[in-house]
């Protein structure tokens, strides 16, 4: 016989959720139906992650879950219990600094209104870490999972290419 069946988290009740957020322990309480982005924003106060379409299309809510870019709107907070979550707040080394990728976005006008930016940064950050030698085709493929209505994407591609270059030669960053 198998181990005793795990507890059912009742609907309409709040339950503890704990995970690592940007390298630090974080926790709060969530109903099973609470989406990860709402948990980040409303329970933990981490409002860097934006909320767009809430059905996985626009990419604004993209965070990294266990190192891979993923939609926070298609993830329940209770599913993320025990995971490693990284959000846009974790990109720079200090509050008054920008990461190489963020700096490239600033330099190349990779954002205008900035609504889609946190999600795009999290996808590109994962790509540049996994594939430091990635070219324009891979960058565009990654961006296909995001909607930006301001830039026409070209400055975003330029920024990503510049960041890839800067990260390959760190002392120029």
């Amino acid at each position, binding site marked *: 016989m198998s181990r005793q069946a795990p507890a059912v988290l009742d609907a309409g009740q709040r339950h503890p959720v704990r995970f690592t957020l940007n390298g630090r322990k974080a926790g709060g309480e969530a109903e099973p139906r609470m989406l990860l982005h709402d948990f980040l924003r409303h329970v933990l106060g981490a409002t860097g992650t934006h909320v767009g379409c809430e059905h*996985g299309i626009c990419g604004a809510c993209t965070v990294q879950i266990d190192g891979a*870019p*993923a939609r926070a709107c298609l993830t329940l907070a209770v599913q993320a219990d025990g995971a490693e979550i990284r959000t846009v707040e974790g990109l720079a080394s200090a509050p008054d600094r920008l990461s190489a990728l963020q700096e490239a976005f600033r330099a190349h006008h990779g954002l205008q209104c900035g609504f889609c930016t946190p999600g795009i940064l999290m996808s590109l950050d994962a790509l540049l870490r996994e594939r430091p030698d990635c070219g324009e085709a891979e960058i565009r493929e990654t961006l296909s999972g995001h909607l930006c209505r301001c830039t026409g994407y070209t400055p975003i591609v330029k920024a990503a290419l510049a960041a890839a270059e800067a990260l390959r030669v760190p002392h120029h960053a």
Partner: protein
Amino acid sequence: MKPARFAYQRAATTEHVLEALHRSGGEARVIAGGQSLVPMLNMRLARPALLVDIMHVAALSHVDDDGARLTIGAGVRQRDLEMRHDTAARQPLLAMALPWLGHVQTRSRGTVCGSIAHADPSAELPLVLTALRGEVHLRSRRRARRLPAEAFFTGMMVTARAEDELIEAVSVPAVRPGTGYAFREISRRHGDFAIAAFAAVADEKELRLAIGGVAETPKARVLPTDQGLDDALDTFAWNLEARDDLHASARYRRELVRRIGREVVLAAIRDREARALKEAT
């Protein structure tokens, strides 16, 4: 858009999952990666009383390869299969189709079996499963059974799965010598839903073409390799009973079946020849 209320259980064993499905009387749904189910929850098109999370069941997270078949467990994420070094060598059609599933941001969470369970008519994995004559492995407390893809997909987002059944795995035949494969998808942009998607398998016995995104389920036909091919594709195009929708007209879809269908079966034949050459050397 927020989901309606539901309870949540994180299962540790397959037995826990089957027990929860058995007890719930159809009110429970399995959640794996959630990339098809959570949009349905958010839009309140699905309102289950209980979600059973299977991603912590170790027994479901394997890809088994016995030489003849690849069996992909319910917990295997699409991206993990895509990144496995031997997927292309073991089943080329699967490797060709995987990069077309949604986006990297959804493949990182979404599972192979989850896409099969959702049974979207334009989805790539149901198409590949149909083209390869794959099987869906179902298990409940009552029984275990395997259904061929064509028997499993019964309608648009409707399958033969009973309410107490878990899709434990799907399996496809591994690559066979003398077989060629081809895949192609027509969509507005990479990652969008397919207007039409094509998967072809060519071996010494037959030429098989499966088409998704046109009919309510993926459909496969064995086609002649001689001059009868164009007529057979035309018949196939009409038999799919394409409809007009926001993305494309029925007429355009029929034309895709004739033209792209032809290109894809020829590509599969060329792939067979290329593989035969490689095997010979």
